[in-house]
């Protein structure tokens, strides 16, 4: 039985699934254009990611193992699923778990081929997950402490923005975004441009259509992370979008202002500055709500 509310939900879902990759691709195009301008050159057209996608989709299909292909679909599917869960205003932790499912799937894809660069890339991707996952979960805990629920719906139900209570956690998303977008200084597992020691890391053995699908998953993931950032200012959401775009711009800026670091530095930075400061932020909320200064 399809009630109007279910129909609306389906409509929103389809809309999200269609619009998200378009917006994500466009944002990546803007990223490339902006990066080019930061480097004093003209850069590709903003729709370049779509050209790349269509071209890759129509390349000859070659691969090393059949099993490596399954993981691509799971990777993309998990990214889409986590976005849908966000749109449905579901449980934050579940969204993050689903995102992690996609991440693990990609790692397994890298492992599934006996190729040095893809395997080392996978090992490093695991470290990247180790670096950003705690920050994401801490953010979810932050949401919970402020709203009293892990449901995203509770964030929207709350009138005042979360940013005031969780400023440091919001800022830690610069690190999360940097890692997720494979930007300097954290582009250690598979850089966008391949001038690194691992060729293209765990993407080395993927080509054509499968690379295109991974690229598309990347677009969904970008939108997902930006969506989560938007939650820090959910009412009105447009301010949240602005906030997320600001952080996105900041990440691009940092990408161009620093060298790539090694995995040890990455873990040190994310666990100390990212997770560590997030914990302080949470601790402050504990103390303040204990003192009765903020409701929690």
């Amino acid at each position, binding site marked *: 039985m399809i009630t109007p509310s279910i129909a609306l939900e389906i409509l929103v879902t389809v809309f999200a699934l269609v619009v998200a990759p378009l917006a994500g691709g466009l944002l990546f195009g803007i990223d*490339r254009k902006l990066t*080019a301008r930061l*480097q*004093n*050159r*003209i*850069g*590709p*057209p903003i729709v*370049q990611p*779509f*050209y*790349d*996608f*269509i*071209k890759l989709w*129509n*390349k*000859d*299909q*070659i691969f090393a193992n059949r099993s490596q292909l399954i993981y691509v679909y799971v990777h993309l599917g998990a990214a889409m699923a986590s976005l849908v869960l966000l749109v449905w205003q579901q449980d934050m932790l579940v969204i993050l778990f689903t995102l992690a499912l996609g991440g693990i799937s990609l790692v397994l894809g890298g492992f599934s081929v006996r190729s040095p660069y893809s395997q080392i890339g996978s090992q490093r991707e695991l470290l990247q997950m180790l670096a950003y996952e705690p920050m994401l979960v801490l953010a979810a805990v932050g949401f919970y402490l402020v709203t009293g629920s892990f449901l995203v719906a509770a964030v929207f139900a709350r009138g005042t923005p979360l940013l005031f209570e969780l400023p440091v956690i919001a800022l830690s998303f610069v690190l999360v975004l940097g890692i997720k977008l494979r930007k300097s200084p954290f582009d250690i597992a598979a850089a966008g*441009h*391949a*001038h690194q020691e691992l*060729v*293209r890391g765990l*993407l*080395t*053995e*993927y*080509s*054509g259509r499968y*690379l295109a699908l991974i690229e598309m998953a990347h677009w969904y993931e970008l939108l997902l992370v930006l969506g989560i950032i938007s939650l820090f200012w959910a009412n009105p959401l447009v301010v949240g979008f602005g906030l997320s775009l600001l952080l996105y711009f900041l990440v691009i800026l940092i990408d161009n202002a620093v060298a790539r670091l090694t995995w040890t530095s990455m873990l040190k930075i994310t666990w100390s500055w990212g997770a560590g400061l997030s914990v302080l932020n949470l601790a402050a909320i504990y103390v303040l709500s204990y003192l009765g200064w903020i409701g929690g």
Partner: protein
Amino acid sequence: MNIITTARVKSPWILHFDTGSCNGCDIEILACLTPLYDVERFGMINVGNPKHADVLLVTGPANRRNARVLRNLYEQMPAPKVVIVIGTCGCSGGVFHNCYNMLGGIDKVIPVDVYVPGCAAKPEAIIDGVVLALQRLAERSESKPALAEALA
């Protein structure tokens, strides 16, 4: 041009392999990527991995050891693909014509689509060469039999 052809022409990812050039053409290829020539305007990026590449840029004449590497790389590129030889010595052997370890031009090892002469080929010439190669790629993409052959 249909949308697929347009995408193919607008997104040539390059793989660069030096088969024994003097570095002159290699640094000119790199110069193409940098702000003054900025070939990313045309969607070109240096991917450094044959499995991702559409265009193979070869500099220098082949010698016996790198010929097999070149063949491997060409083999690992998914169709449709084009090969551009940059520099005089890659076209024919050039000044290295009487060196004992040289096989001569790249066309003795893999099929070549475009020859860019010059010693070293200027960045402008390299861009011209890529434009020429993309024209051929577009022709191939538009004509069904040629595409089928390329994908086979």
